[in-house]
């Protein structure tokens, strides 16, 4: 019983490694394990260039994105005490999407788009926080409703943008909205955010466990609730923004992965945080590899595959035990 989280951690680390190797080896130029090893260890040639310059950045982005979305999901499920909370429930993704799509509509250079997306997401996060934290006291329902209303508003404007956009631009916009990792070249900021927030949230997992009991119970047990909730909100917002700016609004990961770990028997947040991040990284990396290779040369948005893979896994686990 007590070793279960450690065993799961090993299994998930192995899964993450395997899905990374698959991401590096599979593609229009398939590599045998031997070729892949040679390419990774630095033998110059075509294989080396493909692996290191094309596939590696994309795999790195998928891993970071999956970890960040899972982390945001776990944190928001604790903060809102709502099992249906996901990284997008607070309207942050809507703000980011608006920032990016408006930039696309205006014809802004592609390298600028992450910055406009970040600006949009930041504006949304601050708006929701300011309205939810009125008068120095959290009201979780107000926070949740503000997020949902803001997301709906963003959704309406996004529809408008899609209608107004010229035909050629629409496909790119739809890909971004469904989640797409094809254009990513730089992912180290996302990695840094994931490692920092992940380490912090894991270290404070004991406090998160108490916070998850409810704010009054947490206060009785000596957690400074207002500070803790502000930190959790900020961390969740930062994780969501970092992921969304990298890969668009990839759905399903942040909602499902934490539940998947819980259904495997781990609900202690000291373990749930790191295990969810590992599982999310492995899961998104695998989904992205499938999305770009299954119907090659056609590339599908990864968001489609997170749902296609995640739904059956979840249903299986839900049906397994009462």
């Amino acid at each position, binding site marked *: *019983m007590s070793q279960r989280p450690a065993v799961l951690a090993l299994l998930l680390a192995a899964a993450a490694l395997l899905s990374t190797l698959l991401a590096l080896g599979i593609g229009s130029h398939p590599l045998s394990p031997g070729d892949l090893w040679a390419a990774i260890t630095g033998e110059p040639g075509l294989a080396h260039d493909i692996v290191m310059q094309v596939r590696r950045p994309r795999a790195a982005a998928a891993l970071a994105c999956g970890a960040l979305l899972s982390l945001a999901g776990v944190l928001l499920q604790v903060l809102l*005490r709502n099992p249906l909370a996901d990284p997008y429930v607070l309207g942050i993704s809507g703000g980011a999407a608006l920032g990016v799509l408006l930039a696309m509509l205006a014809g802004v250079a592609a390298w600028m788009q992450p910055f406009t997306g970040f600006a949009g997401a930041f504006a949304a996060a601050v708006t929701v926080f300011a309205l939810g934290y009125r008068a120095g006291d959290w009201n979780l329902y107000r926070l949740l409703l503000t997020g949902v209303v803001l997301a709906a508003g963003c959704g309406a404007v996004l529809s408008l943008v899609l209608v107004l956009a010229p035909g050629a631009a629409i496909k790119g916009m739809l890909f971004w909205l469904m989640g797409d990792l094809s254009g990513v070249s730089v992912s180290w900021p996302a990695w840094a955010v994931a490692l920092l927030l992940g380490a912090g949230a*894991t*270290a*404070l*997992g*004991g*406090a998160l*466990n*108490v916070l*998850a*009991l*409810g704010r*009054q*119970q947490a*206060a*009785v*047990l*000596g*957690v*400074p609730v207002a500070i803790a909730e502000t930190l959790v909100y900020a961390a969740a917002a930062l994780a969501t923004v970092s992921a969304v700016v990298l890969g668009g609004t990839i759905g399903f990961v942040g909602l499902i992965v934490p539940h998947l770990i*819980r259904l495997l028997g781990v*609900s*202690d947040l*000291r373990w749930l945080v790191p295990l969810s991040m590992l599982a999310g990284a492995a899961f998104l990396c695998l989904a992205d590899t499938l999305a770009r290779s299954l119907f090659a040369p056609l590339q599908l948005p990864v968001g489609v595959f997170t749902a296609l893979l995640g739904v059956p896994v979840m249903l299986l686990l839900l049906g397994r035990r009462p």
Partner: protein
Amino acid sequence: MSLLQARTLAIGYPGRTLVRRLDLTVDPGQVWALLGNNGSGKSTLLHTLAGLRAPLEGGVELDGRALPSFSAPARARRLGLLLQEDVSGFWGTVRDYVLLGRYPHRRSLWGWSEADFASADAAIAVVDLGGRAQRALGALSGGERQRARLAMLFAQAPVLLLLDEPLQHLDLRHQRELLARLRAWAGERGRAVLMSLHDPRAARRVCDRALLLFDDGSWQAGEAHALLDDACLERLYGCPLDEASASGQGASGRHV
């Protein structure tokens, strides 16, 4: 020195005062009963005394120090509060749940010490949940969940226990065991208990002090045997007490 002291305390919500100008001193060794009708301010008073909400007027002192001057963990080591919140949303086992009561005593950021495990297991045994320790909390019955919440409080090991309806959902045997346990608990090491109850007989059986909250915002505090007489209780509850309850020796325990 008194454990808890409230001075000219007014509690309630903005625009609605529930209790006015309350003076209360809880000394070590005392077991207090807090009685009053629904909505008379029992829970609000307990939350205010525990520092969860600010009083409208006046202040609360713990160990002779103003309550707000305590850090959150330091307060949690001295004072525990049993809430009426539902806990069925918790994912883990009974033992996982009770262990969280050790949070204010934790020595490292991440793990529990052997002492934490020992006091959690002792607390689980005290509330008679030893056979359920590895069950999921959400799978327990209402009364068992109530005992799990009490176990968390015993694991927290405060000096002052504030209990909001500790007897709710408990069967008769566990009600009696809990009351006896609380009486004995308060007799040791300078501890005290203040609990809201709906059963004057239970209050008579174990409490030496009583605080009555009347619907008009007035209150009365003092020796339990003096306050818990028929006239006082009938004025408090606004209804006649039946004979079994009024005489304090009801045989069956069915009448309230």
